[in-house]
């Protein structure tokens, strides 16, 4: 009985491993574009949000540490883009409002593989926003609006 149970257990595990390789669909440019398009769907309330960390000189650095810990494996080193997720240096992201980026971080795009990051406290999410907006020389980014 025990041997049978273990064989069943192993069987399920190996089938799961095989499925794991297939479950991750390839990511192409079109999918990245559709993820960028999600930024425009942020509700007006979020689009108008100020970044409370905008005047914190350490926020981009702290956001960079958080990015390396949580985001880099998908979005690539220094947010240049990876196999699984798009570059965050693209104009679609860099021209977005801080609130729209915060909204995407908080809600994810779960149908397109972007997980929900509401498990990070709000100040950490805003630190990530500060980092993302600092990537292309973000000093021009205002508290609330676009560059």
């Amino acid at each position, binding site marked *: 009985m025990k041997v049978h*149970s273990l064989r069943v257990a192993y069987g399920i595990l190996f089938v*799961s491993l095989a499925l794991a*390789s297939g479950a*991750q669909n390839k990511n192409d440019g079109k999918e990245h574009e559709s993820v960028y398009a999600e930024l425009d769907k942020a509700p007006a309330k979020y689009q108008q949000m100020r970044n409370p960390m905008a005047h914190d000189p350490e926020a981009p*650095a702290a956001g960079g*540490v958080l990015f390396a810990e949580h985001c880099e494996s998908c979005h690539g080193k220094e947010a240049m883009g990876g196999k699984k997720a798009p570059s965050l240096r693209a104009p679609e992201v860099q021209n977005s409002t801080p609130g729209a980026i915060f909204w995407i971080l908080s809600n994810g*795009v779960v149908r397109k593989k972007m997980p929900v990051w509401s498990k990070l406290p709000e100040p950490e999410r805003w630190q990530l926003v500060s980092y993302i907006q600092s990537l292309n020389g973000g000093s021009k980014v205002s508290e609330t609006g676009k560059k």
Partner: protein
Amino acid sequence: MVMFIPTTPSFSVICGPFRFLLLFLAAFGLTPRATQAQENPYIVAYDSNLEEPGSLEVEYFSTFGTQRSAPGFHSFWTEFEYGATAWWTTEFYLDAQTTWGGEGTLFTGFRWENRFRPLKNEHFINPVIYIEYENVNDADKILKEVEGHDVEADYAVPNAIARKEQNHELELKLILSKNYKGWNFTENTLFVKNLANEPWEFGYALGASRPLTMKGASHRCNFCPQHFIAGVEMYGGLGDVHSFGLHDTSHYLGAGLAWNLPSGWTFRAEPTFGLNDQSHQFLFRWGISYEFSEFAETVASLFKGHRE
């Protein structure tokens, strides 16, 4: 009785999960990139946070328990938690236990659970649907959930007898969770059906947790307070469909701490106390886990799954 003695025929049976784990770690441990998990300290309660897509978290958990009418025990289990998509996490468990007093160590069964996030965006409360199939015997003591009229005396049956009773159970949970100002609050309602024509049983779990600080440090560090999450959880049984309520049920309260290291390791510890005479007086639970963030790509390459 199945013992952890190399000379017995059952050695390979018992070592199976661990042998596989060693092979697994040898195959994947050095190759994929790790990413920091942000795990809450709960051992029993679930929140709405799912595994990141393509990531695999390998976890080992352990519970030391005291029993008033039988020897104490050490139950342990391995979990393989995989993010199939951003809205679906699937998890596979292998359970085992040792009961002191010469009762030995035995493999007690496996579980396969799935968690689905039905809603696209974050809401005031975020539901997750949980579906699990269990194939475990009566000697299983991991106490991953408390249901129905489970009480301390049920775990006092000697292993040699308890292991003969095999259970096939379907377990459903409605997980309602909220992240608010750094806190996580979660409530799980549990519905369990033993497929051998037994009544539906019910249970609950509640949890609250919070990182020690809300802001991230501007430098990489292992001991920064942001990496520590403290929490409490409470769980217990609610009877069955014929006898719903708190009568003849057990209930527990645990205070836990999770330490999420930037290297991908997470440590959790939780002393737990029984809240009534039907509960174990004390359980000490701890766990260690490691998150492989590029697991799917690594498996795909092993199966030659590179697609252009």
